């Protein structure tokens, strides 16, 4: 039974990844290309400044994969494989939740676990460290940024788990609805504290040394020694759209996992034994 559920989770995840890829290919890839064009244009402007200042100019990076491969194959394989893994993890969480999260039907539980996954695994970390297109992000801070992002993801998931466990206990005393509200509120407050404690990316040492204390790593306009702008800052529209599409893609992914898995799990869990009416009766006890 558990194996079947996990396989169905992986299947739903793969489908979600495929849909997210179709969305990404149509909506996100043009933005990624614009960001890369910006990065290259900025690099050339920087080289000109360096040459004028008599500095050594570094050679161009060797491309391992063409942009076509990255944009047509890489992101596709990436999103589908990611979706399968996510779907399997989702199914593990679902299997563990069965029978431990109160009187709930298999389908509703699938949607709740998927919603929790979207919020806990992606949305909360995104609120602190949002997705960035190419060109936004300092090469020298990749280690710290990855660590901070992982801390944010771990904190979000652990706090969500704690909130669910405490909420379950509270529900026995004050009822499901108030308990859910309190658990949700507690989760938000705890997550907010973690966000306040963790530093903004702009405050990392390498970034402060470069441009003073800023909130983010988004490239500022490039100036020559006289202070004239020779290349603009990163376009705000591209950044904003990229982030909205990133959230949309994760919504597509998690919604597909929840909606595809729900009826499959329902058939497995209720169809195999008795009718769904009996499930409700006995589980109410």
């Amino acid at each position, binding site marked *: 039974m558990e194996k079947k559920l996990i396989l169905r989770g992986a299947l739903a995840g793969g489908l979600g990844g495929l849909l997210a890829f179709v969305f990404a290919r149509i909506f996100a890839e043009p933005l990624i290309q614009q960001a890369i064009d910006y990065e290259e244009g900025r690099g050339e402007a920087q080289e000109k400044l360096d040459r004028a200042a008599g500095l050594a100019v570094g050679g161009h990076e060797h491309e391992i994969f063409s942009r076509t491969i990255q944009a047509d194959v890489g992101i596709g394989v*990436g999103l589908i494989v990611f979706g399968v893994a996510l779907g399997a993890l989702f199914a593990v969480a679902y299997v563990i939740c069965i029978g431990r999260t109160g009187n709930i*039907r298999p389908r509703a539980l699938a949607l709740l676990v998927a919603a929790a996954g979207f919020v806990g695994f992606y949305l909360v970390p995104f609120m602190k460290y949002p*997705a960035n297109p190419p060109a936004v992000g300092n090469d020298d801070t990749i280690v710290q940024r990855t660590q901070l992002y992982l801390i944010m993801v771990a904190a979000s998931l652990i706090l969500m788990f704690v909130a669910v466990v405490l909420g379950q206990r509270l529900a026995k005393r004050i009822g499901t609805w108030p308990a859910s509200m309190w658990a949700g509120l507690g989760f938000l407050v705890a997550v907010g504290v973690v966000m306040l404690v963790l530093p903004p990316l702009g405050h990392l040492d390498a970034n402060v040394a470069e441009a003073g204390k800023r909130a983010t790593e988004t490239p500022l306009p490039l100036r020559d020694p006289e202070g004239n702008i020779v290349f603009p800052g990163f376009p705000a529209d591209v950044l904003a759209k990229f982030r909205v599409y990133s959230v949309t893609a994760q919504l597509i992914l998690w919604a597909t996992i929840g909606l595809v898995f729900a009826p499959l799990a329902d058939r497995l869990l209720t169809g195999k034994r008795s009718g769904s009416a009996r499930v409700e009766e006995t589980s109410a006890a």
Partner: protein
Amino acid sequence: MSNLSQTASGAISTPLVSAKAATIWLLAITAFLGLAVIYFVGMDEGMTSVFGNTAVVHEFFHDGRHFLGFPCH
């Protein structure tokens, strides 16, 4: 341990996963594999690298990493 009471109640409120070793292994291995895959798609050859720093994995998944919200260069 092995003789768990299999009440044929049909209720979903009975925990499906009990202390059965096989089940726990299945879940643990699935979770591990899932996280490993997510690591390779999202993070390998960035902060840390498993098979040498060739940048091949990083570059192949480049667009997906940015789009999924993982820190990238």
